[in-house]
């Protein structure tokens, strides 16, 4: 079967090229963080952990990282109740204008990021709160909210309405039904969604760039400001934080819902 052989040769050529493109930056950043030299060279000048020591000393990088963590935490904490309630409402109830509400709630995806960012910059600027961290957290929450709602609706539609009726039949009042039946059922979706929200807020760049000032830069903005001057390996070491958190997020996602869900057709 020469036909199938040439087919797999062609496909694998493209796939390997794509794999190289996808993975090269990650691998190089990982490798560069362990270099013993002062600038990044090829071939590397030996292995050392000195750049990890250097970032432990660099207070600006550390503070930027802490700010990013705060932003991601605010974003996640806000999105959990908001996204969960909206997701359950859309999946469980018959809502009038459901279609319009869905389209409205998808606005964060349909409006280009630069437009959303500029708009929120003007809004928060008029409120006089630019430069604080909570507006950045809220902004990250707004632009990624559809992910959260999607994750919750996906697991809420697996919940049979009979379960709640059965609970009601046994005398459970509405709040108990919500806490003991509905909430546990959508919990996997809530966890998946919060994970996405946290990781996306942690490395959100453009909206952060628009909403922070010099005193409140987040880590992606700090890295962006630094790579425009000289490229030193300490940035690679701090970037490993992102790589590690991404790896953890993928592992947890795979455990919780399985990555295969993204291959399913509607």
């Amino acid at each position: 079967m020469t036909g199938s052989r040439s087919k797999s040769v062609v496909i694998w050529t493209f796939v390997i090229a794509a794999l190289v493109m996808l993975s090269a930056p990650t691998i190089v950043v990982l490798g560069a963080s362990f270099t013993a030299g002062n600038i990044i060279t090829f071939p590397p000048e030996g292995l050392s952990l000195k750049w990890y020591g250097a970032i432990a000393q660099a207070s600006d990088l550390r503070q930027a990282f802490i700010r990013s963590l705060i932003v991601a935490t605010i974003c996640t904490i806000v999105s959990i109740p908001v996204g969960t309630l909206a997701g359950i409402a859309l999946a469980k109830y018959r809502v009038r204008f459901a279609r319009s509400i869905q389209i409205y709630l998808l606005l964060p995806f349909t409006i280009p990021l630069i437009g959303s960012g500029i708009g929120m910059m003007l809004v928060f600027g008029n409120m006089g709160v630019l430069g604080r961290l909570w507006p950045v957290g809220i902004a990250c929450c707004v632009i990624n909210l559809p992910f959260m709602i999607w994750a919750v609706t996906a697991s809420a539609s697996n919940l049979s309405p009979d379960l709640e009726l059965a609970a009601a039949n046994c005398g459970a009042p509405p709040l108990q039904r919500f806490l003991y039946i509905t909430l546990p059922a959508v919990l996997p979706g809530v966890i998946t969604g919060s994970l996405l929200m946290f990781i996306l807020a942690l490395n959100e760049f453009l909206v952060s760039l628009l909403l922070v000032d010099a005193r409140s830069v987040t880590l992606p903005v700090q890295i962006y400001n630094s790579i425009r001057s000289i490229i030193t390996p300490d940035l690679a070491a701090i970037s490993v934080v992102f790589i590690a958190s991404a790896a953890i997020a993928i592992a947890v996602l795979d455990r919780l819902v399985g990555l295969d869900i993204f291959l399913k057709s509607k």
Partner: protein
Amino acid sequence: MRRSRAAYPWTWRVMDGLESLAARLWPARFEKGLPYLMLAPAVLLVGILVLGLVQIGDSSLRVLDTSTFLMSEDLTLANYQRALTESFFATVAGRSLLGSVIVTIVTLIFAFPYAYLMVRTPSSALRKFLLVALFLPFFIGQVVRAYGWLIILGNQGMVNEALGLVGVPPMRLLYNYPAVLFGLVQYMLPFAVLMLAPALTAIPAELESAASSLGANWLRTFRHVVLPLARPGLVGAGLVVVTLSLTDFAIPAILGGGSQDFIANAIYDQFFRTSDQGMGATLSLMLVAVGSLLVGLVFMLFGAGTLAMTGGRK
């Protein structure tokens, strides 16, 4: 006293208290309104975006007074006229549009075999590996990825150092148009593959076997069976990639080094370099219009795909 407490634990008391509180706050006769109450926070939160758009619209109608550096009080359409006539903006818009079209074509060419292999491979380990390789860069963020490319392609970067070892003089690989397009392609690959995969999953493998048992070689099978059936996925992925690369900021800023600005960079410069808020707002609004039109088209043609909130089955 003691017995009754054992029979009625304090957790029940708490729940009863909460239950009556909830009943008082939201009596049962408002039951019909409950889903709207649950939707309200999300609607309000997205309302910030709408408010932002209104503010952008307002700013876009005011021109910058270059003597006082204040925005004008009266409203005009002068910014729109400038945006449509000045050649600088036309150059930037042309560069972005051409770039996003090239990026889309190249991305689809690479994404299609990737998605095809991922969907059709019998090995679940390979499938998982391909998925992880796709998600890892997606979750790492644009800045770190662009930083990786700077290390690889910079003047003292790995490629040039490696070429130097074999005696080739250093080449300027960064801060040009191809570098930006290359960066965008690798940024868009995960999006394109994830949009294509469900469309390919929906094509029964038996159709391909049928085509080949009727004597079609794999190229003809692809051309006449797989590609036409995958067209919704291709168009959807294409529109998403066009929109995202048209409006991208980080890759042109970092890999273009200021000389290869896309529309988003021009908007940023209007706000933070020239401080012409009105012009920046005008460009933003025009970009929002074009971008929303493209995405709206995707949603109308294909539904919201994997992001559909109608609670399609998993």
